[in-house]
């Protein structure tokens, strides 16, 4: 008991320091640095315009190269500017799009899912990410996994005053939930 108390006592400052460091790191990671906004935007737009958009119109090895370059750009943005919530959400979803295009569906699913986990305030990005991953899983025949994302869409976005495009997404999510058994019909 004495030993235990001593151990607890000894462990306490370490725990406290760890807690303080965690709080500091968390606040550093989330507090947006205004000086990062412009370079983050530039990096995102450069990556999208130079590599990601053209990859949609390229084929073969050129397409592979452009997708790889785009992925590198988005990963760089996520590393360098983690405080830029909106650009990171966009980059993360775009990275999901690239992995999906590269045939890495499971990696893509994790990336899409992490958009809402890491950037919950970015409604439009969250909606797109959930909808894309749900449709990808649905199309791959993984309907049970897809339904979880459709359900999330309904739970979060089924509100009376949402925009037309959101209403359509919610309506389609309902359809998918109701027609799970007819996935391939």
């Amino acid at each position, binding site marked *: 008991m004495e030993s235990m108390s001593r151990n607890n006592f000894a462990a306490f400052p370490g725990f406290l320091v760890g807690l303080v460091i965690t709080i500091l790191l968390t606040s550093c990671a989330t507090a947006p640095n205004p000086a990062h906004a412009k370079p983050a935007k530039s990096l995102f737009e450069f990556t999208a315009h130079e590599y990601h*958009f053209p990859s949609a119109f390229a084929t073969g090895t050129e397409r592979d190269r452009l997708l790889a370059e785009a992925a590198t750009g988005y990963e760089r943005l996520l590393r360098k500017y983690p405080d830029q919530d909106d650009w990171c959400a966009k980059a993360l979803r775009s990275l999901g799009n690239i992995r999906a295009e590269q045939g890495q569906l499971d990696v893509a699913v994790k990336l899409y899912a992490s958009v809402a986990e890491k950037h919950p305030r970015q409604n439009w990005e969250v909606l797109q990410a959930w909808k894309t991953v749900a449709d990808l899983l649905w199309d791959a025949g993984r309907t049970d996994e897809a339904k979880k994302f459709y359900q999330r869409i309904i739970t979060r976005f089924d509100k009376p005053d949402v925009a037309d*495009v959101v209403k359509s997404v919610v309506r389609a999510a309902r359809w998918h939930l109701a027609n799970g058994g007819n996935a391939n019909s």
Partner: protein
Amino acid sequence: MSPGKALLLAAGCWLLASAGYARINVVTLPDRDTVQLTIYNSADLTMVKETRHLTFRKGLNKLEFSWANTLIDPTSVEFHALTHADQVDVLDVRFPPRVTNTLEWHINSEVAGEIVCEIRYFTSGITWSADYVAEADKTEKLLTLAGNVRVTNNSGEDYENTQVRLVVGVIRLVEEIATLARQRGQRTDKDRLFNAFKAEIDRRGSYKTKELGVLCLGDEQAPAEIIKEGVSEYFLYTVAGRDTIPTGWSKRLPSFQTNNVPVTSYYKFEKEQWGDAAIRFYKFKNDKPSNLGAEPLPDGDVKAFRAVTADKLWTFVGATNVKYIPIGEAVELELGEDRDVKVQPTLMDWQKLDIRFDEWGNVAGWTIKETWQFEVQNSKDIDVELDIRRNFEGDWSMDSATKFAKLDAHKVHYGLLLKPREKQTVGYELTTRYGINVTK
């Protein structure tokens, strides 16, 4: 459509739906039939309405919309069938990973054939500004006022054959929309923004009648004319005719031209405001008797000219900027110095009088008497009205052989009428009391 800035991507083959739906038919898209821009300047917000004649096949059809490289707000995009509306349904909206910044409508049609569809959305990056040209006749009694609107497109998207509508006026609703627009990063507000904007613009029946009237004009060669409509607290101007406004370009569209606007031309001299120069003003009223008053005039730059010969050789008078002019309000254009009208003040005499001392021999009161003379010259070949203003401080009184009016405790004004090439002299004696000499 600008390369890489495709709004709607066309396709024309049969696709097999991977799951969920049966066969999906991809619609072949023609160019836009009509485009309408409604520009809210104060919010950097433009509502775009496109109509297209789309050929649908019976069953499921797929339509893509891309906002890549543009300032289009994707959360605001809407698709509506204008014909066979009850037989055309948007079943799904997808965000395909193969193309970024693109959404894909899955549309079920109960009919095969051509359907008129409307796509509308918000974009930023389109602005407008008004400017005016005022041409005074030789006597400067009547004015021809022409208004123009310059639309600048930096939205990233070309708009061909476009009808332009402008929202003029700053009101509470517009301010609310502006506030929401500034919060555009927070997407939840976009729904409110779009709905508020859409509802305000669409809620009037008169607008639709006017719009149809404009659409039916059919004369693309006719000069654009702006139709003005009262929309509660603000005005909606519709530029008649259509024009193409590519991204990165500005287009100047004629707004109106009104002849025979009564104008008052006059000059002001006030040293504290404009130094030693006589400043020319044109004044007119935005009302019916002035052949105006149909609508408020948006703020903008004004360039003024005056006819100097019978065959209308024009001379530049000056340039200024006017604020928003409501109906019924007078507007005063400050056009700068005119060297043909001169005011030369001269201090002719200065005396310190009536010096009084206190019991210790210090100066306790005194009076200053100044004699001023103004030489006023009109070198023009027309009559000139001149308003001379003088400002005085303290306990002052004034004597003058010329009639003057006291405007307030510190300001007097002379109103003079000078014939062509006439010189006049105005004089006054100013007495100012200090210390114990002050009587007021």
